[in-house]
């Protein structure tokens, strides 16, 4: 297993600025992550926690109102933030790919499946229409779509939701990328199909040696699919590390609350456990820890000062004052140095 990470994010921040420049939404705030080849990293958080913006930031396909204000993104040793848009175009779809959440909306209704699946191949590898068409057919087979010869000629609205999502998956792997980002790929699928799809993703990952970033709000999927986990809250990563260790002993109160809120069949409790309060307004974050207003274990320091990422044990960090053994002397994993 190579030691150098495939993708490494350092202190990445992405802000949305309103048209008049009056409102700044800190969608991604000082995020540091890394993923190695062949690994699966899960990113978990509520809606509005910044997971999707993070994914779009990595791919550098942000809407015009968004700005990457600081940080570094090293992919295979190159800083993606230094690249021009033309250079990024060669990376996107070819070395890094992404799957979006809603497969019906992701596919252009006016073009055939074959056209859309083969498109990246034509653009990135200069393949002819015929070659791309054949490759498209093979790709459909690889994502286990029955009768690919007929499907290739059809239009998106003629497919079921599950099939469409596989097609989007096929588009993702069409140019053999090293990294695949999946943004809530199963959220719009029926439960019965979800398991099949996840198995497919896992098999594809193994066959192609893909690194997979799996964005979801579903901890069950994380348990099944991921090696590493990063928990996001209010645009910040509050805890990250190996999945098994986080699940068995969560260090951050938010993670603990998330895990605790999953109802179990064996529970005798009568009430569902929810987390009190509302997610914060990302344009007006409190000065201290973003989770403090809702945290059952918050104390004075939490509200005054935002905690840095601290090492909890090997390979695991948490952004919480509770994880700091001594309030003054800390073993910080990262000192923020805005370049």
């Amino acid at each position, binding site marked *: 297993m190579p030691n150098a990470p495939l993708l490494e994010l350092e202190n990445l*921040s992405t802000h949305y600025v309103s048209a008049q420049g009056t409102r700044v939404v800190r969608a991604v705030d000082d995020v540091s992550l890394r993923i190695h080849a062949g690994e699966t990293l899960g990113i978990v958080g509520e809606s509005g926690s910044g997971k999707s913006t993070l994914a779009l930031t990595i791919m550098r396909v942000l809407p015009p109102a968004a700005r990457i204000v600081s940080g570094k993104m090293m992919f295979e040793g190159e800083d993606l933030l230094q690249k021009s848009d033309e250079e990024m175009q060669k990376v996107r779809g070819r070395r890094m790919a992404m799957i979006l959440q809603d497969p019906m909306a992701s596919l252009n209704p006016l073009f055939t499946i074959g056209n859309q699946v083969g498109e990246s191949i034509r653009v990135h590898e200069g393949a002819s229409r015929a070659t791309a068409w054949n490759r498209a057919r093979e790709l459909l087979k690889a994502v286990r779509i029955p009768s690919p010869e007929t499907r290739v000629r059809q239009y998106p609205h003629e497919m079921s939701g599950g099939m469409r999502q596989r097609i989007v998956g096929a588009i993702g792997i069409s140019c053999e990328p090293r990294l695949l980002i999946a943004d809530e790929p199963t959220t719009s699928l029926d439960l019965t199909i979800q398991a099949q799809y996840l198995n497919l993703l896992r098999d594809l990952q193994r066959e192609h040696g893909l690194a997979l970033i799996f964005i979801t709000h579903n901890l069950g999927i994380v348990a099944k699919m991921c090696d590493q986990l990063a928990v996001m809250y209010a645009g910040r990563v509050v805890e990250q590390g190996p999945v098994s260790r986080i699940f068995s002993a969560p260090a951050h109160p938010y993670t603990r609350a998330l895990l605790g809120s999953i109802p179990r069949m064996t529970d005798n409790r009568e009430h569902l456990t929810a987390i009190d309060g509302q997610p914060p307004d990302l344009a007006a974050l409190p000065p201290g820890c973003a989770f403090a207003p809702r945290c059952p274990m918050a104390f004075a320091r939490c509200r005054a000062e935002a905690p840095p990422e601290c090492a909890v044990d090997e390979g695991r960090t948490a952004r919480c004052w509770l994880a700091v053994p001594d309030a003054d002397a800390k073993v910080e994993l990262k000192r923020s140095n805005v370049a």
Partner: protein
Amino acid sequence: MSTTSEVLTLPSQAPRFGFIRGLRLSGFPMIPTAILLGIAFVAVFANQLAPHNPEVGSLVARFKPPFWETGGTTKYLLGTDQLGRDVLSRLIFGARVSMVVGITAVLFAGVVGTTLGIISGYLGGWVDQLIMRLTDTWLALPALTFAIFLAAIVGPSMWNIVIILGITYWTRYARVIRGEVLSLKEREFVRLAIVAGCSKWTIMRRHILPNVINSAVVLGTLMLGVVIITEATLSFLGIGVPPPQPAWGLMLSDGKQSLMVGRWWLTIFPGCAIMLMVLSANILGDWLRVKLDPQLRQL
């Protein structure tokens, strides 16, 4: 760790800024509104402002160019037409016609259209179907053609024109208002009123109506421009406001006769007047549309 230093804050909008300043900050179109108010002012005080009688001219002073050209005099600032009538005076009185016809027609169309829209949207059923089919048909025929047809039947007079324009354009209101009512119907406060036992008419009057006024007003400002252009078109074709009453469209029609000989002032000035008024109404309407209800952007 990122701090709050990068966060920009909203400029203070305390009342000490004053009403005008506050309007300015929200992008209120001051100039167009000023123009419209100016035209309204001119229309009201036409008798005082116009230097000459707009309907009677002196044949001796025919076709005088504006005062800055050779042959022009300061007596007739913007020149005279083929009957020796002062262009400026006719423009001023024409403003009255445009204002009166424009506003009245828009109000008429608005009242009828909003009422029918509310009834159609709220009552639903065959009433809705009937009204909608009717609007569909009337919308199928271009407004201008329909207006021309009606004008040809009833003959020219200012009030006929107002009625015709009202009949032609109420359908636009009806459609939009009906759409609004359909979504309003599902809202809580309407359901509450029904449960409380209010009659249909009461609900429509007291609950639905105030909520659609916004859209009606926005639509009204947008329609003002359209109505004025239609009125000008009808007058130009000779079936609008009848002579000798000065209407800008009529002035353009007269001006056309002598266009080929280069008497440009008979064409340019009335046209500019129309353009100013319609442009101002459109800008104001656009701003209102964005301000009052972002959902109306489809209009």
